[in-house]
């Protein structure tokens, strides 16, 4: 876990921590992309819907620093670019095979539209929880209490969560890198 201890200062807006929640939610729970928001936002902030995606040429960008492998621009029904889908990798508990995530982030970097797990080999490890069905809910409650735009009801009126200390996992770092790539390289 070479990067787990690196303390990078990232822009606040981006600190999508939240994504976690989202991320997780999406992670295994569903095939599709779940709407979630993070960053300073209004709870009523609309989440764009994505109609199509096109791979971008990112050879001119510094992808290495963000562990980014592929970026696609996302357009809505009208053809307007509303976000970027950034594929990043990060080591989880399995120090030999990384997790690969696709984080879809609005063009201004203010909104996490969705997160998808492309590849993970955590199953035999501690990170196996990533593949358990309750995992998404857990993320939702813990990290996105007020950020989730879903109608689930849970968390909709909750302002914080008190629980045992939670250590950031690879998912968080991977999503965070993706959002930084959008704001620092594409923005």
């Amino acid at each position, binding site marked *: 876990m070479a990067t787990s201890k690196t303390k990078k200062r*990232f822009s606040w807006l981006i600190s999508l*921590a939240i994504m976690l929640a989202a991320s997780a939610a999406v992670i295994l729970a569903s095939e599709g992309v779940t709407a979630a928001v993070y960053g300073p*936002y209004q709870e009523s902030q609309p989440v764009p819907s994505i109609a199509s995606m096109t791979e971008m040429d990112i050879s001119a960008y510094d992808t290495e620093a963000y562990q980014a492998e592929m970026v696609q621009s996302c357009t809505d029904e009208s053809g307007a670019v509303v976000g970027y889908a950034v594929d990043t990798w990060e080591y989880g508990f399995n120090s030999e095979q990384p997790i690969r995530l696709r984080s879809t982030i609005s063009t201004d970097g203010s909104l996490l539209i969705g997160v998808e797990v492309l590849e993970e080999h955590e199953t035999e490890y*501690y990170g196996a929880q990533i593949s358990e069905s309750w995992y998404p809910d857990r993320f939702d409650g813990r990290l996105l209490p007020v950020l989730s735009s879903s109608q689930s009801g849970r968390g909709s009126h909750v302002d914080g969560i008190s629980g045992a200390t939670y250590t950031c996992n690879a998912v968080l770092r991977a999503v965070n890198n993706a959002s930084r790539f959008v704001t620092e390289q594409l923005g």
Partner: protein
Amino acid sequence: MRLSRKNWIGLTAGLLSGMLVLTAGGCAPPLQRFSTSFLDVFDTASTIVGYTVDQQTFDQQADDYHDLLERYNQLYDIYNEYDGINNLKTVNDNAGIAPVTVDQEIIDLLLFGKEIYEFSDGRVNICFGSVLEIWHDYREDGLNHPEKAELPPVDLLQQAAEHTDIDSLVIDQQASTVYLEDSEMRLDVGAIAKGYAVAQATKTIVEDGMENAAFSIGGNVSTVGWKEGKEGNNWIIGLENPDRTAEDYLLTVSISDRSVVTSGNYQRYYTVDGKQYHHIIDPDTLMPAEYMQAVSVIAEDSGFADGLSTMLFLMPVEDGLELVEGMDGVEALWVDMDGTVVTSSGFDQYIND
């Protein structure tokens, strides 16, 4: 029609008084809810919810808060070095070698650590780092290679426990130095640092004008003012359910100008021979405490709540209950090993129906 001078004066006066009424009355801009999160402090996920007149105000305050926490995080870090500062890692690295000049924030934390040590009869000991380090290493190895996960050898733990005497932590307030006289001793402030940092940062940000906010820093919640800025409208905080298959919170509490801190066995642990070993180590047995699954403390000060939750986690529920009943302004909720919930007598007032 032409306005006479008199008319003008009347009109102007009318307009002015109208404006005054508007300003004093209903024209204060409504407060809006904002929220932000970040991942780069205390190895955990943090969320701030606040009510301000506009986003710019919120962003500025949230950014300031983040910067405060980032600084505390660096100062209290025992694993990483940072350019230009002496932190607790520097102090540990100089154990038995030389006193280290440190910032006041470190002195204050360590003094607080000594208070908690006294208060907890030695259960919460910031000089317990040599033992915790061994558990940390075995846990990390066990997580990376679960098939080879093992427990630390008892004699190794016992040797380390010889080097946990808090009197060997020498704080010179005059010279602003800290020195570990015992070269084998290590500081580990994990039981109090986050709560203490949150308390200090919250104090600072309130002085700087933030009025209504809830700060959740990795499960450590601190609140100021009121939800929506409406007096009497408490913040609603969910208590994590130790039963990780449960779909909802254990319960929610309703608080204002209070902190909630939880210690539990269900997040940071590793598995050896099918049994889970978490990270809160009993100084008597040198093994993870097994009195309960979790305990949550509600108190005014988040630093104290943090230390107390660890202390309660390290003692039988009945003993902790007796202790809390004897304290003012503190309530607690325990989830014992079989999932039974026990609360102190005043806890009910906080339960959100």
